[in-house]
């Protein structure tokens, strides 16, 4: 036989018993041609482009899923940063001068994206985004002002706002705005425990080809239509490690590398086939371990298998080993790595991480340290509803600093759940999960945020 029965059975077992799946196939679409001074035309253009380019996306992915027998959990769209499409309408001298009309225009465009995503059968569409790491245009200013309402009035639309980069530093005016936007989005979606915030990510060094939501968008360096694939497989890695309890850490790193290679190859095959079948460019494979709320499909469980309770001393070291080994194994498996690539540590989507918070092992401060060595940042963290906007902004500034200084992507997706206090539980269900409300420092950071301005780009030599 062309391959050993043991290898075939290993793959079958990974799927059936250890939650092996391809987490997302995301079609990135250039929507720049949709820009127009008339918002009705913008909406029509968005609908036309998405319906024509993405009509076959979901059926094609489902066919590939059946063909290879590997579950593909999510099918999504990522678009050009929508704020740039609105420049002709919302900028100074543009076609809309009244702020109230501007807000209505932003909300209308979000609704058009929401409907277009629903029509082609995807659950999330990313790219309702603005790139403001150095400055904010007049159109982006209005876009950001309307962002919470747009998120609250749609189901599928996801937003990312890049407020910092290693080249530009940190735009602290934008950081201040995002703290307020997160508070407003939470309050507008109070009935669903602030669910609007789950669709809003604040970035440093945002990747242009990230297939994962809510942070995915279609960058300016991309082609018209690109397939990007996000892999997964925490359950597979955990099951491998559980059978090697007494091995030294270099052996653990090797086992993770080997497993990541196999997982990434599945993603590479799906990416190649999907791009070919859809007649679009093949983009990247995001070498990520993304947890779900399925028991065992957890980064926290992997850390426990390595030997640390998530949040205990040693967690950052164990996570850095994991992230690096995933990248090394994945890099051998595809020549097109990209996106976020590493380990995701969303609290609400990982049962073991939630339990670590409940047990008092994992604090927000430790989580922040962990983000220095993994791929994303403070992700799906629930904090008390009365957390001031300035405290959220200051937390964002801290996280952005980690990304800017270390020349990596970091992000914040945080939910100040209205009416909730530390220790309360929030439950959204489905992909977003839920979990305990975490403590956040009650010391005041408002004077720092009130200063505004920019934190200059860091010196990249003298690198200690």
């Amino acid at each position, binding site marked *: *036989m*062309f*391959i050993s*029965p*043991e*290898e*075939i*059975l*290993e*793959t*079958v077992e990974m*799927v*059936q018993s250890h939650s092996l799946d391809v987490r997302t196939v995301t079609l990135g679409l250039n929507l720049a041609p949709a820009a127009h001074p008339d918002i009705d035309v913008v909406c029509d253009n968005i609908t036309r482009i998405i319906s024509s380019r993405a009509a076959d996306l979901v059926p094609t992915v489902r066919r590939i899923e*059946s*063909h*290879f*027998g*590997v579950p593909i959990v999510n099918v999504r769209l990522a678009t050009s940063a929508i704020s740039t499409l609105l420049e002709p309408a919302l900028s100074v001298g543009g076609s809309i001068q009244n702020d109230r009309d501007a807000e209505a225009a932003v909300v209308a465009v979000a609704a058009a994206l929401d409907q277009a995503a629903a029509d082609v059968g995807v659950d999330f569409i990313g790219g309702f985004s603005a790139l403001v790491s150095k400055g904010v245009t007049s159109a982006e200013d209005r876009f950001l002002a309307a962002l919470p309402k747009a998120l609250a009035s749609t189901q599928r639309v996801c937003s990312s706002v890049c407020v910092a980069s290693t080249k530009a530093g940190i735009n602290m005016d934008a950081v201040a705005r995002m703290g307020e936007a997160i508070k407003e989005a939470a309050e507008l979606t109070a009935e669903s425990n602030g669910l609007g915030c789950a669709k809003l990510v604040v970035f440093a060094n945002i990747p242009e080809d990230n297939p994962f939501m809510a942070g995915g968008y279609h960058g300016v360096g991309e082609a018209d239509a690109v397939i990007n694939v996000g892999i997964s497989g925490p359950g597979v890695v955990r099951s491998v490690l559980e059978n090697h309890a007494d091995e030294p850490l270099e052996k653990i790193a090797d086992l993770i590398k080997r497993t990541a290679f*196999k997982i990434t*190859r*599945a993603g*590479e*095959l799906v990416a190649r086939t999907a791009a070919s079948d859809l007649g679009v460019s093949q983009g990247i494979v995001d070498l990520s371990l993304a947890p779900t709320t399925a028991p065992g499909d957890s980064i926290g469980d992997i850390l426990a298998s390595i030997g640390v309770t998530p949040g205990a001393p040693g967690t950052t070291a164990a996570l850095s080993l994991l992230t690096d080994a995933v990248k090394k194994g994945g890099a*051998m498996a595809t020549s097109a790595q990209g996106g976020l690539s590493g380990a995701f540590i969303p609290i609400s989507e990982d049962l073991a991480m939630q339990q670590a918070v409940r047990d008092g092992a994992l604090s927000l401060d430790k989580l922040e340290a962990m983000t220095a060595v993994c791929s994303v940042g403070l992700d799906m963290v629930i904090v008390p509803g009365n957390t001031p906007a300035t405290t959220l902004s200051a937390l964002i500034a801290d996280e952005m600093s980690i990304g800017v200084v270390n020349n990596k992507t970091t992000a914040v997706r945080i939910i100040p759940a209205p009416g909730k206090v530390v220790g309360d539980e929030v439950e959204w269900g489905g992909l977003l999960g839920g979990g305990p409300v975490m403590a956040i420092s009650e010391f005041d950071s408002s004077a720092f945020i009130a200063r505004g301005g920019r934190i200059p780009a860091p010196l990249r030599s003298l690198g200690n």
Partner: protein
Amino acid sequence: MVVSVIGQDRPGIVAEVSSVLAETGANIEDISQTIRSGLFAMIMLVSIDEDSTSLDGLKETLTGSGEKLGVQVQVQHEDIFRYMHRV
């Protein structure tokens, strides 16, 4: 395509799966049996004319047969195994 059958060993598994494949015109090119973690495991490499045979239909029929026999049956294109286990 690769057909994998995993479950408790019992008489008739090979016969049942083979007859379903024969009815759909699939040709068995290779077959291998082993015991893994105490369970019976059979792997078949089969060729199917996907233009004339519905893959989803075959999967459904084989899954139904598997349920009757108390085993799990998977049908997957061989490329997934080539990719995952070879550079």
